[in-house]
Each structure stands twice: as C-alpha cells, then as structure tokens.
C-alpha cells in the first residue's frame, strides 16, 4: 500500500488542522468564545452543525488516498502499484463500489430497468427484465419477499440507532455532569427537559437521526442498490457519497485560496490609501467586470489545452482530475475575492480613523504592527461571515459549471456531473429519476445546513444585526 497525497488532500488536512487549532485557542479566550456560544445556542444552528459535521467526516474519509500494491508477478524485484487511487471511504464501502450491474436499475430493484432478450435453456427467446447480478442477491430469483426483507433490515437499523442514541445521551450526560459537578442522572433530566446552556437535546436527536441513516445504509446498501444504478451499472449511492468530497472542497478551498489576497489587499488599500488604494481598486474592478462564468470558462479551456499537451505530468487520472479541481478552486477564488476585498477596504478605511488606531500611530507603532495587532482582529468578523456565506453559493456553482462543461473533470464524481447526465435520463420513457433525486437530496441537505448555519453565524457576529 502506498499512500497518495493529492494536492487537495494536503490543503484540506491543513485546513482541518487550522480549524482545530483555532477551536482550541478560542476556547480559552472569552471574547472569542461568547459569539460562538451565541451561534450554538440556536437549535437550528446546532442541528445544522451536526449535519455539516457528518458531511465533513465523509469528505475527510474520502480524502485519505492510497494505491494498492499489485500482485507480484515474479518478473522484477521492484514492487508495482495499481494505477487506481482508492480512499478509505472506498474501502469502507467495499462491495457497494465493486458490485457493478449491467445498466440502469431502480432503487431497491432486483431486476434490471430495461427489458432484454434472454435465451432460455431450451433455446426459446424471451423478452424480460433480467435479474440483477448483485442487487437483492440473497432473495429468490423472482425477488419475492423483498418488502419483508427491507422492513426487517430497516427495523434492525432503527434498533441499532436507538441503542447508539441512548449510549450517546448517557455519555454526554456523564461528561457534562462531571464538568459541572452534577450527577449524571440529573444532567440527563436537564438535557431532556432542554434546560442546558447549549441545545444538547437537539444535537443528540440530530446525531441519532444521522446514525439511523448510517445504519440504514449499512444494512440495506450491502444487499440492495438503495439509490439504484446508473447507465453503466454503478451504484448511485456510492457516487453521491463520493461527490460530497468534491462539493466540500469547492466550497472551502476556494475561499481558503482567495483569503490571503483579499485580506492583504483590502486592508492595505484601506489603510495606506493614496496610489496603493487606486491600484487595488483598479485590479478588483477589472477582475469584477469580466463575467465570472466566462473568465472561469476561458481559464479552464486553457487548462484543458495545457493538460492535453502535457500528459506526462499526470500519472493517474485521479491526479489529473485533482489538478483540475484545484485549478477550478483557484479560478473561482480569483473571481470571488473581489467582494471580500472591497468590504475589507471599507472596514479598514473606517478603522484607521478610530481613536485607538490614532493613538497607536501617535505612539509610533509600526504600520505592520498596527495592521496585524489592531486592524486584523477587528475585521475578522467580516472575513468569517463572508467565508461561511460563500460556502453554499460555491457548492451550487459547481453544479452549474459542470453543466457548462468547465467544472470538475468529467471522470470525477460530483453532483454537477450527476445532474448533467440526469438531463438525458429525464427524457427517457419511463423516467430514470434516481440519479437526479440523489444528487438533489444530498446537495439540498448540505446547502440548506450551510445556509442555516451561516445565518446563525452572521446574526451572532455582525454587530449591526446583533442590536436588533
């Protein structure tokens, strides 16, 4: 096994590390802790954070990549590695990834979606729906008893989830109880009566619900194609799970890449004024005036030409797709940093007249120090609000760009590519709806959770809305 560190993997793990360090740091500073408390006190926000965390876990599992060692054929001493790059998620999903049917099949189907000519043993031909190779394999050939089997498995998942939920409740109560010096039993009562500072009951209920879905997936996906299969027989549920990473990466890396530029240019322009300000304003007006989609399209077309002319740099298709994804993030960042830059410039213009900055200037504090010590901490709420607000827009933009043909690599799993192929499927008779439905469902839940969370963050951090 050879670990593979793709560019985006490295960046995403770096980002995770930064977030974790920030959380640890913020816990010890009351002025950072209070607004976050305000965010999490809302039940909707707390629930959406749990949902987002579930998505993030899937995305992170899918970011641990490696290449399997090939069987030694005895010809050479060197070990060879398969060109297929796998992730931990692939391994966990195991059979779901490898059980490929012939073509379309509906969710929970035991037979193919399209009729085919089957030759029977006595030589007669028959137009019928062939049996699936893997879906519902444990059932008799006719697919009888499917309903009862599904019900059984679902009930099992329900029991498992309730059990897990109870364990979580007890564990949380014990932990919280120890911290506040209450008995674990008293703490449980408080949680259930919703009398805790943070809405623990909502968090536990949401978590249990997600666990229920996980257990359902574990129990059902091993036996059926829970969301059907696509044109080449690939499991749609697997594709949707793989798409989570793409969506998250676009949403987070784009802002991460543009952040340093936007912060630096914005603050410097507002603080220094004069010709620096003019130059920065000129740059962002110019970039802003080019329609975003067209700039992205132009850049991606150029990247395609580049990749096509330099195939030697990319060892595997996954690496090629990864570079394209990273480049897409960079380009999206270039088109979207202008908004934040303008906001920060305005903030910095306002702040430089503030009394404490004037005082610092008259004490002879160096400009660099004023910017990092006084201005930067005071514009961080603007940065945070923008980052969180941009996330959902970027996830949605990915779908549109993939449709236009300038999104992620066509070989990469993404909701945009799924929707794109679903276009033709919707025109079929009878309709193949499950690809579109799965992409819709996952994307909708992620974007909705992100939107609700960002509203809570904005309300907690924006001084203007706080007063209202």
């Amino acid at each position, binding site marked *: 096994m050879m670990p593979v560190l793709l560019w985006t993997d490295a960046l995403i793990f770096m980002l995770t590390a930064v977030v974790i360090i920030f959380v640890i740091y913020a816990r010890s500073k009351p002025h950072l802790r209070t607004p976050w408390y305000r965010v999490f006190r809302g039940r909707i926000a707390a629930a959406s954070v749990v949902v987002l965390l579930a998505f993030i876990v899937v995305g992170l599992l899918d970011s641990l990549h490696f290449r399997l060692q090939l069987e030694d054929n005895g010809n050479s001493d060197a070990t060879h590695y398969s060109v297929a790059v796998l992730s931990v998620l692939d391994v966990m999903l195991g059979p779901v990834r490898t059980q490929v049917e012939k073509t379309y099949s509906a969710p929970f189907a035991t037979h193919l979606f399209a009729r085919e000519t089957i030759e029977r043993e006595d030589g007669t031909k028959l137009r019928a729906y062939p049996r699936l190779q893997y879906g519902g394999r444990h059932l008799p050939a006719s697919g009888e008893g499917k309903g009862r089997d599904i019900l059984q498995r679902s009930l099992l998942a329900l029991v498992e989830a309730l059990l897990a939920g109870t364990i979580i409740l007890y564990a949380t109560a014990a932990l919280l109880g120890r911290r506040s010096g209450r008995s674990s039993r008293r703490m449980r009562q408080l949680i259930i009566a919703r009398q805790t500072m943070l809405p623990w009951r909502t968090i536990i209920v949401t978590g249990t619900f997600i666990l229920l879905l996980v257990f359902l997936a574990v129990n059902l996906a091993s036996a059926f194609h829970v969301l059907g299969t696509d044109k080449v027989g690939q499991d749609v549920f697997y594709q949707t799970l793989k798409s989570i990473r793409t969506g998250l990466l676009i949403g987070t890396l784009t802002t991460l890449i543009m952040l340093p530029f936007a912060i630096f240019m914005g603050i410097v322009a507002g603080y220094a004024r004069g010709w620096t300000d003019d130059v920065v304003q*000129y740059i962002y*007006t*110019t970039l*802003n*005036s*080019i*329609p975003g*989609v*067209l*700039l992205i*399209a*132009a*850049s991606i*077309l*150029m990247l*395609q*030409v*580049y990749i*096509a*002319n330099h195939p030697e740099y990319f060892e595997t298709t996954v690496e090629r797709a990864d570079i394209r994804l990273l480049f897409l993030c960079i380009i999206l960042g270039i088109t979207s940093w202008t908004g934040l830059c303008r906001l920060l410039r305005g903030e910095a213009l306002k702040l430089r007249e503030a009394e404490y900055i004037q005082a610092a200037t008259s004490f002879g504090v160096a400009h660099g120090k004023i910017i990092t010590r006084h201005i930067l901490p005071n514009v961080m709420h603007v940065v945070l609000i923008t980052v969180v607000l941009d996330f*959902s827009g970027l996830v*949605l933009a990915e*779908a*549109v760009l993939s*449709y*236009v*043909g*300038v999104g992620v690599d066509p070989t990469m799993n993404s*909701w945009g590519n799924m*929707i794109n192929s*679903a*276009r033709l499927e*919707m025109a079929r008779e009878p*309709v193949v709806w499950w690809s*579109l439905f799965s992409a*819709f469902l996952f*994307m*909708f839940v992620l*974007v*909705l959770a992100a*939107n*609700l969370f960002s*509203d809570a963050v904005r309300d907690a951090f924006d001084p203007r809305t706080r007063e*209202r």
Partner: protein
Amino acid sequence: MFAYIVRRLLYAIPILIGVNLLTFYLFFVVNSPDDMARMHLGMKRVTPEAIEKWKASHGYDKPLLLNSEADALDKVTDTIFFEKSLKLFVFDFGYSDDGRDISFDIGQRMMPSLAIAIPSLIIGLMVNITFALLMAFFRGTYIDVSGVILCVVLMSISAMFYIIGGQFLLAKSFRLMPISGFDSGLDALKFIVLPVVIGVVSGIGSGARWYRTFFLEEAGKDYVRTARAKGLSESLVLFRHILRNALIPIVTGVVVLLPLLFMGSLLLESFFAIPGLGSYTIDAINNQDFAIVRVMVFLGSVLYIIGLILVDITYTIVDPRVRLT
C-alpha cells in the same frame, strides 16, 4: 453631472485595457496558437503542415506582439495582438473559429435573449417585492418566520433542479407548454412562458429575503416612527414611506444588471434551446471556440462598466440626497 459621466467613461478605458490584456495573455500567451490548433485538429498524429494551415486560415500565424518582418507601421499592426485584441475596442469582432461573422451572430441572437431576460426581470421584481412586503408587514409573526424559512429552503435548491424539475412537471407531465425551442414573432410566446416562470421561481428565495432586509432596515428608522406616531395606518406607512425608500437600493441593484441582460442567461437558454447569446456562449465553450469566448468576455465587461455608470446616474435621479461631484 455631464462632467462626471465623461470622467467615469474615461475611467472605464484603463479597465477595458486591463481586461483586454488579461484575455490576450490567457488566450495567446499561456497557450500558444500551436496548442490551440492541435486541440482543434485532434491530439494524435497532427502534421506540422496541418497546424500551420489551420493557423493561417484563422489568422493565428502572425507574431504575437511585434512583426519584425513587416515594414514601418505594419510592424505593430500585422500582429495577433492588434488583429485579435485591439480591434475589439472598435467592436470589430472578426470571425469565429468555424468561420462565421461574430458581430452578425450577436445581432441575430440578442432578441431571443432579451425576450426571456426582460419578462423574467420585471415579473421577478414584482413577485419578490410582493413577498418581501408581505413578510415585512407581518414581521415578527409566524408568517414572517415561516416565510424566511421557506426562502432559505428555496435558496438551497440549485437552479438546475428548478429547470429540470419545471421542464419535467409543466412540460412533460402536464403538457402545458412545449419543453424547449423557439420561434419567430408572436409564436415565440408559448416558448417563452416556461423559461420565464422558472427564472422567476428560482429567484424568489434569495430575492425576497434580500428585499425583506431592505424593508426591515427602513422600518427601524426614525421617520417611520414619526409616521406611526402621527397615527397613520400600518399599511399606509408601509406603502407610502417604507416601500418608497426601500426602492432606492432595489432599483439601483436592478439597474446594474440591465446592460448584462443582453448577455442572456446561460442555463435557461441552453436548457430550453433558445437561440440567444447565453446559449451562444455555452456552445462556444463546448466547441472550444476561443474567438467567440474572447469576444463575449470583452462584451461582458463593457456592459458591466456601463451598468456601473448607470447606477450612479440612477442614484441621483431616485435619491435627491445624492449629489455627483
């Protein structure tokens, strides 16, 4: 006022030069015309002669910036930069990579784009303002709260789903109107309805929520309290005072979009097979027609800058407090 507009127009020139240089760099320097030729002719087994021929037929065989072989003035003018980039400034768009006159195509395709864009804008504006007013009128009640939640839900659905879902429900299942296509004259009407409806519905979520904040911002101001203190009814306050003042940011937000309406909507037009500029752009991207993409980038930034100038002018018209200097 006049002096201000002239100054703004002059200020637009360096921006357009910047856009022009950027596109030139992207299209001709990052990848040489040789790469483009190879891409168009297929990657494998392309003879150098074929590449040269393709370049010559599309005018990409000249030097990039300086033609040292030509005489006098031609040294500068007989180059790709002059032929392909500078001529955009006089709206001489030249020919697309498959040999069609771009200016003619743009003229042809502008009307269908506008036929979709203008009704969507007007109807969308009215619908959004109505919903936002409703939420502002019932602010703080369950109607407002559920309205905002509904808006967030609507916002979280990708535009693609609105289009595919709308096409599927209204056109395919209920057969109310044709799925896609376009026609000339009044016959076009039946093709326009569905894209407009979908365009409006997909915009309600973000639009209504955004306008609601404008109304609420105005509602918290002193003159509103004064109006209420005088004993005016709540609906009179809302329509006479709040609506009028909140319209300032709404109108200016719309004006900046007006010139860009010419560019059409990429998604709607390509899904509904409307021969407008949006689908023109998408086709160009899919066919990797660099000439058209370059022209559309330039055209888009010109229109954007016009929009910015229009906004400033509208401010002085709708808000007498603003003076341009």
